């Protein structure tokens, strides 16, 4: 099990030596739990860092934000930026590097292994704690320990872990500069794609009815897009005409921009949005599950992305986030590809 002090020492040391200009990590939230993302820039801030089963956030997103911030301010980075990364966070960083979003030497990865555990799903915890409000959560072997007003409560990790973590086989950040915690690659608390497999036992009619209901509920807050490290496009197909407008954008360009999707949060537009996003994430989604976690209306978005991921794995043996140097799914082809269109 990882000692939080090791994470803090590593971050403090890197900042003190000037090897990184900042470290992206987690600190305790304003209500104790859940943790929240934080960017620390001074060695003495390292003591704020935490590591617990509420460190849900895929911090690779904040690497993207950092790069966008630098580009906007027309600043150069100087020293690399440090990031504490779980297995899924590290896979996202690999995809971003594979897509040349930033270079390997720009990022210092402090890998943290989830080992045999993972992150909680708050709704599962709430169901089990029967009204008690937890103010802190901690790893405790096969269990999670929750601090509540009525004292410590322990719950079996597997009962309250997020689905994405139960299905995760790569809880260890393979790509790292330094790694903490045990490498338990290949562990499987649940079969991969278990939730998807369960869903697919439904008939086509039931599935269609299900998705209609889900998409009808979408309020288009775009949290799924905002939280996704892979959704880094400056200009997104769903935005209104003004996004990505610069002083040099001509009136012609602005006037001729097609509105692919109307602003109205109605089923037709919502479906187009979610389908477009799913296709755009094919071969790129690392199943961090953040889109599903943040959705305020509980749309099970992992099912969509898992479907694409499984297709890629079964048809092409492709696993997103496995290698920086390897070919990407949609930007490469094989000579023996049976599809004629590619030639």
């Amino acid at each position, binding site marked *: 099990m990882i000692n939080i002090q090791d994470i803090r020492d590593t971050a403090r040391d890197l900042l003190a030596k000037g090897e990184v200009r900042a470290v992206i990590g987690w600190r305790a939230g304003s*209500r104790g739990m859940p*943790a929240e993302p934080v*960017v620390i820039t001074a060695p003495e801030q390292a003591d704020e860092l935490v590591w617990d089963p509420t460190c849900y956030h895929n911090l690779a997103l904040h690497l993207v934000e950092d790069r966008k911030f630098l580009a906007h301010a027309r600043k150069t980075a100087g020293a690399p930026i440090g990031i504490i990364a779980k297995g899924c966070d590290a896979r996202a960083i690999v995809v971003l590097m594979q897509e040349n979003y930033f270079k390997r030497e720009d990022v210092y990865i402090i890998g943290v292994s989830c080992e045999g555990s993972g992150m909680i799903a708050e709704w599962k915890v709430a169901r089990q704690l029967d009204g008690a409000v937890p103010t802190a959560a901690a790893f405790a072997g096969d269990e999670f320990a929750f601090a509540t007003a009525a004292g410590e409560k322990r719950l079996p990790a597997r009962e309250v872990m997020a689905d994405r973590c139960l299905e995760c086989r790569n809880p260890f950040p393979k790509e790292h500069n330094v790694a903490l915690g045990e490498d338990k690659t290949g562990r499987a608390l649940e079969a991969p794609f278990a939730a998807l497999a369960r869903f697919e036992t439904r008939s086509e009619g039931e599935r269609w009815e299900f998705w209609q*209901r889900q998409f009808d*509920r979408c*309020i288009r807050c775009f949290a799924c897009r905002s939280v996704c490290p892979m959704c880094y496009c400056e200009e997104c197909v769903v935005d209104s005409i*003004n*996004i990505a407008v610069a002083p040099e954008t001509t009136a012609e360009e602005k006037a001729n921009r097609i509105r692919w999707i109307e602003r*109205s949060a109605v089923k037709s537009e919502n479906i187009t949005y979610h389908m477009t996003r799913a296709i755009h994430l094919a071969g790129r989604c690392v199943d961090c599950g953040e889109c599903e976690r943040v959705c*305020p209306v509980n749309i099970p978005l992992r099912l969509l992305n898992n479907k694409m991921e499984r297709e890629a794995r079964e048809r092409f043996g492709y696993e997103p986030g496995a290698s920086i140097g390897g070919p990407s799914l949609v930007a490469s082809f094989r000579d023996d590809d049976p599809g004629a269109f590619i030639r």
Partner: protein
Amino acid sequence: MSMEKILDKARLNDWIAALAKGGDWEVHAPALEDGVWTYKPVGDAVRMDHPNTKQPPKGFSFPQREVFFSFEQIKGEAPRLTQVMPDPKRRAVFGVRPCDGRGAVRMDRVFADNVNDPYYQARRKNVAYVGLACNTPPAATCFCKSVGGSPVSTDGLDILLTDLGDRYHVAAVTETGKAMMAVAGSPLADAAAADRKQVKQVHGEAVAQPQRAVNNPEAAPAKLKASFNSPLWEELARACIGCGICTFLCPTCHCFDLNDEMTGTVPIKGNRVRTWDNCQFPDFTMHSSGHNPRENTAARLRQRVCHKFQYFHENFGMLQCTGCGRCVSECPVGIDIVAVVNKVAEHVA
């Protein structure tokens, strides 16, 4: 105005049926669908054991999408505009929590100020809110008391229900509420002295429940005003991912967009549509020239917080935030408006 009744819980559905039949009300109540508490038209069973709904009831008077008018124009000729007004059916919304009732008060102010908004008013005049007092322990994110509210507030409601175990205490707040209680076939019975005593006690206990708090809310407008240029906003917004959860789920956020949605090109046919919009989206304030007065997440977080705790207060003499806590519990990265206001106040002399 005082009118108090007692309703046997087993007869709640009888009352709802009477409202539908005798009062021509379409009744809505919270229902749990796919793990989300949502207001739905009532079938035969009403549950009112919800914590709070995921979305506030603001959509009853301000739906996320509505058509203002349709247009049709043959090129070179005058267009034909056809106004589309809302369906005038009366809707009774059950189970509205007091924070959301107070949200309705604030929405009403915005849409009546300066010029009446005809679409909002057409809907609002036909909506009645049947509130439900919060007499179970507050959620970890509730803070209604520190922003002038209370778990038993009647502001913005037509009726307030209080759960007394096997029955509801039913108190009229408005004339509409009175009429609903007196609807033909109503199973409501007169409240006995013991009921009145019990409800007082229950309310007292509810109000005494500890909550998180905005410290010194009276000072918040001035403190925020003094903080406008503070570098603190950058730090507070550092984790913000720029999604629209906080505002779309807010009972008092009223910003909107107007767009033309085409349904045909020859002749030009379409609808002018109002949709919710969101001050956290970058294009919200961006000029056509590309200039953006609120160009980063820090400026946009500041706008949201200052709107709730400063600008609205300057314009209407009340805080806009009602302490429902949705923006706190639902924020993907834990941005907490209570902590933000408190931190800013601490940092301003």
